[in-house]
C-alpha cells in the first residue's frame, strides 16, 4: 500500500483481466476507467460499514487504552499524565502477581488438556459411526450454553454443603472437599469446568482436520504393519499439526480472557485465589475506578501474550519447514 495509485491501477487491471466476462458486458456506465471507479465505490459501500465498526471498536480503543495506561484516569475523566507510574505500581502489586499466577495455572491446565482430550475424542468420532450426530451435539452443549448459567450450576454441583460431588464423595466414604470455597482448590476446579465447557469446540475442529487425512494413508500404514500408536505418532499428529498450533493459540487467548465463569462462581475469592488478570482489570477499572491502572495491567497481559503467540507461530512454522 506504499504506492496507492500503482496498487489501485494493478488491482483494477487485474479485475478487468480476470473478470471482464463478469462485469465487462453491458455494464452500465462509460469507459473502463469510470467502471473502475464505480467498482471502488461499490466495494467500499459494501464493506465500509463492517470495516468501520470492527476496526473502530478494536484499534481505536486499543490505542486509547495505551494512552490511558499512562494516566490516573478514574473512569469519569481522562486523568492526568503520570508517565510510567502505573507500570511501576504494577511491578510491586501483589494482587497483580497473584492474578498472573492464577491465569498461568489456568493456561497450564487448560491448553494441554483441551488439546489432548480434544484430539482423542475426535479420533473416536473419525470413522463411520452410528449416533455421531448425537455425540457431537452432546459435546457441544456446554460450549454453547452461557458461562454465567454454567457457573451458577457448577456452584451448586460443587457446593461444599449441599453439592452432588461432595454427596458422592461422602457416600463413597471419602472426605468431602471445599472445592470452590477452598483457596487451594478453587482455581483447579474452575480450570476443570473450563475444560469441560470448551472441550466440544476442540473436538469439532480436530474432527474436521482428521477428515482431511486420506483414508488410504492410514490403511497403507496399517498394512505395512504400523500399529495404532505408530499411526497416531507418525501420521495423525504431524497431519493435524497446523490445527494443533491454531487450537493452542486459540486456547491460550481463551484462557487468558477467562472471566465469565468467575463472575458467577467465586468472584475472585476465596482470598484472591481465583482472580485472573482479566478479572483484576475489571475490578480495577469498574469496581475501584482506577481505570488508568487497569489499562496498564491489561496492556501488560496483552503485550506478554502477543509475544508468546508470535513466538509460538514462528516456532511452529520453523519446525514445520524442517520436517
Amino acid at each position, binding site marked *: 500500500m506504499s504506492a496507492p495509485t500503482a496498487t*489501485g491501477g494493478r*488491482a*483494477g487491471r487485474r479485475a478487468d483481466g480476470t*473478470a471482464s466476462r*463478469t462485469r465487462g458486458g453491458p*455494464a452500465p456506465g462509460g469507459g473502463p476507467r469510470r467502471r473502475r471507479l464505480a467498482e471502488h465505490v*461499490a*466495494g*467500499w459501500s*459494501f*464493506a465500509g460499514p*463492517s470495516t468501520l*465498526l*470492527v476496526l473502530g*471498536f478494536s484499534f*481505536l*480503543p*486499543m490505542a*486509547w487504552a495505551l494512552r*490511558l495506561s499512562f494516566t490516573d*484516569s478514574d*473512569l469519569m475523566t481522562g486523568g492526568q499524565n503520570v508517565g510510567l507510574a502505573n507500570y511501576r505500581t504494577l511491578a510491586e502489586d501483589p494482587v497483580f502477581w497473584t492474578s498472573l499466577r492464577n491465569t498461568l495455572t489456568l493456561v497450564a491446565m487448560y491448553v494441554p488438556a483441551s488439546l489432548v482430550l480434544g484430539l482423542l475424542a475426535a479420533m473416536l*468420532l473419525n470413522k463411520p*459411526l452410528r449416533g455421531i450426530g*448425537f*455425540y457431537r*451435539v452432546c*459435546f457441544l*452443549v*456446554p460450549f454453547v*450454553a*452461557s458461562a*454465567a*448459567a454454567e457457573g451458577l*450450576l*457448577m456452584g*451448586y454441583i460443587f457446593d461444599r*454443603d*449441599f453439592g*452432588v460431588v461432595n454427596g458422592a464423595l461422602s*457416600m463413597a466414604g471419602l472426605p468431602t472437599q471445599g472445592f470452590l470455597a477452598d483457596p487451594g482448590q478453587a482455581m483447579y476446579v474452575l480450570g476443570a469446568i473450563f475444560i*469441560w465447557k470448551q472441550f466440544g469446540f476442540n473436538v*469439532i475442529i480436530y*474432527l*474436521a482436520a482428521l477428515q482431511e487425512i486420506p483414508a488410504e494413508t492410514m490403511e*497403507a500404514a496399517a*498394512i505395512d504393519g*504400523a500399529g495404532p500408536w505408530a499411526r497416531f505418532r507418525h501420521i495423525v499428529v504431524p497431519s493435524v499439526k497446523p490445527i494443533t498450533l*491454531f487450537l493452542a493459540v486459540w486456547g491460550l487467548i481463551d484462557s487468558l480472557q477467562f*472471566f*465469565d465463569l468467575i*463472575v*458467577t*462462581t467465586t468472584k475472585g475469592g476465596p482470598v484472591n485465589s481465583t482472580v485472573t488478570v482479566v478479572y483484576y482489570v*475489571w475490578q480495577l*477499572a469498574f469496581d475501584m475506578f482506577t481505570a488508568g491502572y487497569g*489499562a496498564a495491567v*491489561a496492556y501488560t497481559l*496483552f503485550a506478554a*501474550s502477543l509475544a508468546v503467540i508470535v513466538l509460538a507461530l514462528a516456532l511452529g512454522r520453523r519446525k514445520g519447514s524442517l520436517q
Partner: protein
Amino acid sequence: MTLAQDHPTRRPSRPVRRRAGRWRLPSARHAVLLPLSLFMVAPFVYMLAASVMSETELHRFPPAIIPSGVDLGGYRKVLAESDFQRWFLNSVIVSTTVVVSQVVLCSMAGYAFARMRFFGGRTVLTLILATTLVPFQLTVIPTFLVFSKVHLVDTLPALIVPQLASALGVYLMTSFFRGFPRELEEAARMDGCSRWGVFFRVVLPVARPAIAALAVIMFIYSWNDLFWPLVAITSEDKYTVQVGLATFQGQHKADWSQIMAGTVLATVPVLVIFLVGQRRFVQALSGAVKG
C-alpha cells in the same frame, strides 16, 4: 504419506482385513463415547431436575438426584421476585437486533471482500482479521468512556452498537462467497441488474446456509455475552438475562431453587437455537478453520 508412496502396490491387495477391523471397533468406541457424552450433558439434566426440586430437597445432604415431584416454586419465585421477564425481553431485543445487523453487514462485507477489487480491500480484510488478537479487556475501558461521553451507558443501544458487525462474521461470509459459484450473479448482471440488486435479490437468497450459520453463531454469542453488559448496564430494568444471573450469585446465596429455575430459563433459548441449527453451526466452525 511417505508410507503410502513406498508401497503403492500393496495397498489394494488386502481390503478384507481393513473391513474386518472397521467392523469390530464401533462397540469399543461407544463404550467410551457414551459415558463421555453423558458426562458432558449430565450437569444440564441435573440443572433441569434441580429446578423442580423443593427447597428441602435442595438443602439436603447427601443431595437428591431425582426430584420427588415437580415443584415449580423456583420458577414462580424467579418470575415474581425479580425482573426476569424484563431481562429476558432485553436479551431478546439485543440478540435479534445483533443477528439481523450481523447478517446484513457481514454478508455485504464478505461479498465485497470475496468478489470486488477495490482500493485497500485486501489490507482492510487483513486488519479486520487481525482484530481477533485484540482482547476485550484492552478495549473495554476506552469503549466505556466513549459510550459514557455520548450518554449511552446504561441503555440497550450500548449493548447493541459494538456487536453490529464482527471480524468472525466478515471472515465466515468472505470464505463462503469465495467458494460460491459466480454464474448466477453474472447472469443477473447481464440482465442489467445493479450491484445492489444482484446482492439483495440474487446473492442473499442463495447464501441462506451461510447466513443461517452466521445467525446461529451470533445469536449464541450475543445471548451469552456477559463482560460488556456487566460493564455497560447499571439499572436493573436494563439487565440482560446473563447480567441478571450474575446478580443471583451472592444475592440469593442459598435460594438454589430460584437460581436453578433462572439458569434453565436463560439456557433454553440458546439450546433451542443450537439444536435447530447445529448442523450449520458445526459446518461453519469446521469450515472456518479449514478455509
